[in-house]
């Protein structure tokens, strides 16, 4: 076998398939087929666009309206439900995980954001770290426990709102942080702590801000309270901040979460009577199943600690 034969074979193949020797009718038929397919594809693409563009426009407009009216967290929540995404896997801010009871839906299974009750509430530590009864009201400095101390009766991941999201989100700088301005009639912390028989005090009614700025300012208050609660872990200041938010937005969508966080602050501060009063509505199911189990177990733990 020589190269000559291979060369002759290649020449034969080249001449057999010479472009000039092709059938013009076949070329025309192939051309028609190609152009028809291209045109059909373009029609399909245009039809897809004509369907998808209005849907996208409606979606964007809905988001804009939701953001403008302050219903964005609910919209995100509803979208998550529609898409079948769990709340626990998201890194969204806690205010986006508004309690499901606001929509009357049952709460999801316990998640990292909402820790399992068995893991969350351990009666023994609660009793063990219960501060001894002291006759004199504690000084304000002692009211706000050092986060490094083992004082907290609850595991550090107890707080109800998304700690992962809070930790991942960069805390606002001092310059960009919205000013923390509790309402003038917000309860002062030393006064509350000094009260020998603290009454379950609902958040004080404060005069509502102007309607136009209310959602933004309330959200700023909520975020500030979250920061104090989860980042600084300053329970007394967080309590004041939660009270301020509840006063600013008494009918806000985040009120159940704020009330729950406020109750946690009271537990942390050792103000059992107020904590019990704050937890009881949750245990009764006033907010549906939101935090109901945890509230019951916390109440049991408080009782164990007392007896």
């Amino acid at each position: 076998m020589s190269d000559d034969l291979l060369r002759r074979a290649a020449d034969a193949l080249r001449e057999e398939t010479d472009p000039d020797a092709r059938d013009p009718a076949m070329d025309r038929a192939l051309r028609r087929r190609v152009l028809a397919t291209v045109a059909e594809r373009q029609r399909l693409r245009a039809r897809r666009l004509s369907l998808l563009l209005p849907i996208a426009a409606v979606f964007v407009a809905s988001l804009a309206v939701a953001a403008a009216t302050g219903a964005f967290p609910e919209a995100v929540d509803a979208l998550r439900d529609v898409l079948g995404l769990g709340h626990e896997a998201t890194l969204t801010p806690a205010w986006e995980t508004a309690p499901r009871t606001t929509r009357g839906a049952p709460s999801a299974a316990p998640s990292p954001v909402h820790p399992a009750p068995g893991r969350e509430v351990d009666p023994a530590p609660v009793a063990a770290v219960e501060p001894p009864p002291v006759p004199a009201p504690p000084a304000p400095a002692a009211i706000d426990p050092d986060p490094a101390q083992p004082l907290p009766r609850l595991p550090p991941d107890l707080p109800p709102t998304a700690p992962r999201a809070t930790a991942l989100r960069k805390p606002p700088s001092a310059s960009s942080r919205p000013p923390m301005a509790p309402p003038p009639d917000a309860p002062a912390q030393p006064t509350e702590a000094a009260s020998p028989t603290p009454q379950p005090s609902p958040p004080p009614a404060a005069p509502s801000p102007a309607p136009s700025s209310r959602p933004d300012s309330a959200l700023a208050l909520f975020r500030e309270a979250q920061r104090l609660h989860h980042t600084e872990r300053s329970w007394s200041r967080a309590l004041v901040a939660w009270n301020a938010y509840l006063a600013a937005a008494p009918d806000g969508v985040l009120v159940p979460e704020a009330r729950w966080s406020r109750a946690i602050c009271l537990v942390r501060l050792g103000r059992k009577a107020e904590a019990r009063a704050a937890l009881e509505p949750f245990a009764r199911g006033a907010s549906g199943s939101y935090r109901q189990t945890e509230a019951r177990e916390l109440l049991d733990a408080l009782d164990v600690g007392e007896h």
Partner: protein
Amino acid sequence: MPVELDARPDSLVERLRRGEVSAVGACYDAHHGAILAFARRLLGDDDAAQDLVHDVFVELPRAIRSFEGHSTLRTWLVSVALNMARHHVRSAIRRRAAIERFGREPEAAAPQGPEGEASRRELGAALSRALDTLPLDQRATFVLCDVEERASPEVAVITGVPEATVRTRLFHARRKLREALSREGVR
């Protein structure tokens, strides 16, 4: 060899990028002969070659986005055809194997001519069968270099490999083809 990309709004490439159907038609008229010939040589099957040409020109409005003008439009079209040929090569080989299994040859496109012409057709058919024994990269390199007589730098552009690789593939392709033709008793 890099060529200047014609960026005028009315150039064929720009019209293809805009997805104009008439531009696809113009491109087909200008280049389909070369692409069809390459497809027939690569696949050894007229039906599969037409399908490949159809696919190349149908995908053209989308594929043209990757055309950067480093080669001529025709060379680039050949490389697109080569990239899309894998599936068609397999189907052409299956079809040829089925025809051989049932002991009937495809009908000749032209009437039987003088003996020399018949011998040449048989030689071409034998080479097509021998090409079926090669992997696609060696098959394409042999078709581009020895059948289409393209220079190795252009083949390197089309196949997307260095020239040295082209030469290596060509060496192995020729050796295997000689062995295959020898097994068939072609002289």
